[in-house]
């Protein structure tokens, strides 16, 4: 079984952190992968930085810019995953990547190279249901899953998307872009219920999930939690220390403590 599917099926309190690969450096990304695994993450969503990230809010945009400044590309990220695996880190990895870098690399080549490096799945935020045939087929050919998203506005689309979901179904909690929010969209419960009725895979909720209470609420309801911007913000806070080899382990420990606090109930 694919590692993402295995993790999603065996944990009823899925915790999925998101970080941008290469933020602030590739070396740090490898350390962070270990830290997140040790903090109890079940799946790692690894962002490939992009110049025009339509679905992302300011926090992740800034992280992507830091990473692009370091020269990170899809190739670099695939190589990083290979290093993560070589370091003995086994957490399932889903690459969060906009479609253009994939097309430029060559869709088939990208999926093949990533799979060989140890990637388990892909999430392509600007490849909706109508456009994802080839990507899904190619992912499956290499034993990867393609994660689908549904949003509170998806309405009758929810059923179609949920029915074909693989790994876990990513439910966007609120309209707009990724980012830290105080409250969830009021339509959340209705739409998640609709999604879970049609879905054959577990649900994970993301966009705006930023507090221990959010995670706890989702876990109580039996849904997974994706935390992105809030963790990326923490990485941003310790950027200078993370770049300094002498202070890195201290910063990593701070981040670990923070991430653990998100999931401890």
């Amino acid at each position: 079984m694919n590692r993402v599917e295995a993790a999603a099926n065996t944990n009823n309190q899925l915790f999925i952190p998101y970080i941008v690969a290469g933020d602030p450096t590739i070396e740090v990304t490898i350390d962070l992968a270990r830290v997140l695994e040790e903090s109890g993450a079940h799946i790692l969503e690894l962002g490939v930085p992009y110049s025009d990230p339509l679905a992302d809010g300011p926090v992740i945009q800034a992280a992507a810019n830091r990473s692009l400044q370091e020269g990170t590309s899809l190739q670099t990220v695939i190589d990083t995953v290979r290093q993560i695996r070589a370091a003995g880190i086994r957490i399932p990895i889903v690459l969060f990547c906009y479609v253009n870098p994939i097309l430029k690399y060559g869709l088939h080549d990208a999926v093949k190279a990533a799979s060989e490096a140890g990637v388990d799945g892909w999430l392509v935020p600007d490849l909706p249901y109508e456009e994802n045939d080839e990507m899904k087929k190619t992912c499956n050919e290499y034993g990867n899953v393609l994660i689908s998203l549904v949003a509170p506005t998806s309405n009758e689309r929810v059923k179609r998307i949920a029915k074909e979901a693989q790994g876990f179904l990513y439910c966007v909690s609120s309209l707009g872009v990724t980012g830290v929010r105080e409250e969830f969209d009021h339509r959340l419960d209705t739409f998640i219920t609709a999604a879970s009725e049609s879905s054959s895979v577990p649900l994970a909720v993301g966009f705006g999930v930023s507090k221990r209470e959010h995670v706890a609420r989702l876990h109580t309801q039996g849904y997974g939690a994706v935390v992105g911007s809030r963790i990326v913000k923490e990485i941003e806070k310790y950027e200078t220390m993370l770049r300094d080899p002498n202070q890195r382990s201290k910063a990593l420990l701070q981040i670990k403590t923070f991430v653990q606090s998100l999931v401890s109930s």
Partner: protein
Amino acid sequence: MQQSYPDHKGRYGPFGGKYVPETVMAALEELEAGLKEALVDDAFLAEYEEVLKEYAGRETPLTYAKRLSETVGGAKIYLKREDLLHTGAHKINNAIGQALLAKRMGKTKIVAETGAGQHGVATATVAAKYGLECKIFMGEKDMERQKLNVFRMELLGAEVVPATSGSKTLKDATNEAIRYWVSHVDDTMYLIGSVVGPHPYPYMVREFQRVIGDEAKRQMEQLPDAVVACVGGGSNAIGMFTSFLDEPTVQLYGAEAGGKGIETPEHAATLSKGDRGVIHGSLTYLIQDEHGQIIEPYSISAGLDYPGIGPEHAYLKDEERVHYEAITDAEAIDALVKLTQTEGILPAIESAHAVALALKTASTMTSDQSVLICLSGRGDKDVDTIRGVLSDDKGGES
């Protein structure tokens, strides 16, 4: 030909489509349905035509450029005078269409992106006319370069929101406008200014701009031998070309921004130098690096420095129906001066790219042939830029 595409998935051959986050899909579907209804609603179409006539100033004249033609010594040159429209360019055709559609669909707010400010001004104008709340996203750098247009939009009652992400220019303003729209789809319509973006935008903007070519075709005594327009995103060109696509004797030419030369990195020649990829929800040609990151383009003309191009243009290039050529800053300015001094018509720098390509083309033709140029906008907005360029040139010579 044009009736056969886009297909039901918004494709022009392999190009186009809807490469957007799931959060936008419902809004696009709603827009598609609203547009489909509106385009067969006689009352809607009648109102659109009425506003174009009574408010925007259609139909626009067709001018025979006698002295310019004589200077070139080749084909007769005709100008379709979109520069005479209210707000100074063809952009108003589309802004009126989309604002009427927003009203018809019960939206009370509109958002738009703008580069130089022309689409922003057109949008703010129709927002004022229809009492719609209006937000215009504009790159922080562009706001600095186009202070007067920022003030003009604010005077019209719009809120101009600086786009501070990425390279702080048009592409980033577009990202920000889409991001904002995604969070406010319930009451907000997004007015795209060109034939770009996810389906149905390229199709909708074509339908609201095709009046240019429909009119010009009627006004010409006989079919022109060549039709020339400038392309940034490509809305005035699509508007002009659509009526002529099925006329095999008419050669179609698109002038893209060659900037400082397509052999340099400073250009916006998407079709000459770009390759396939996805930008702002559409599969098309774009200017990108080896890793698929979008590169900020360059042109003297703020209306042409867009790293992508409408998907229909990508298709027309591959089908070899339209011939696209890059025109440098210098060639455009040269053509601008020629047109101004032979006809007393100061074109926008964008439109001057079309004039430059038309002059090249006309010079290879005979006096019984004709070239039709889409003069998409007037140059009042560019006087400062032109003065800068021309005084630099003089300085260099002395």
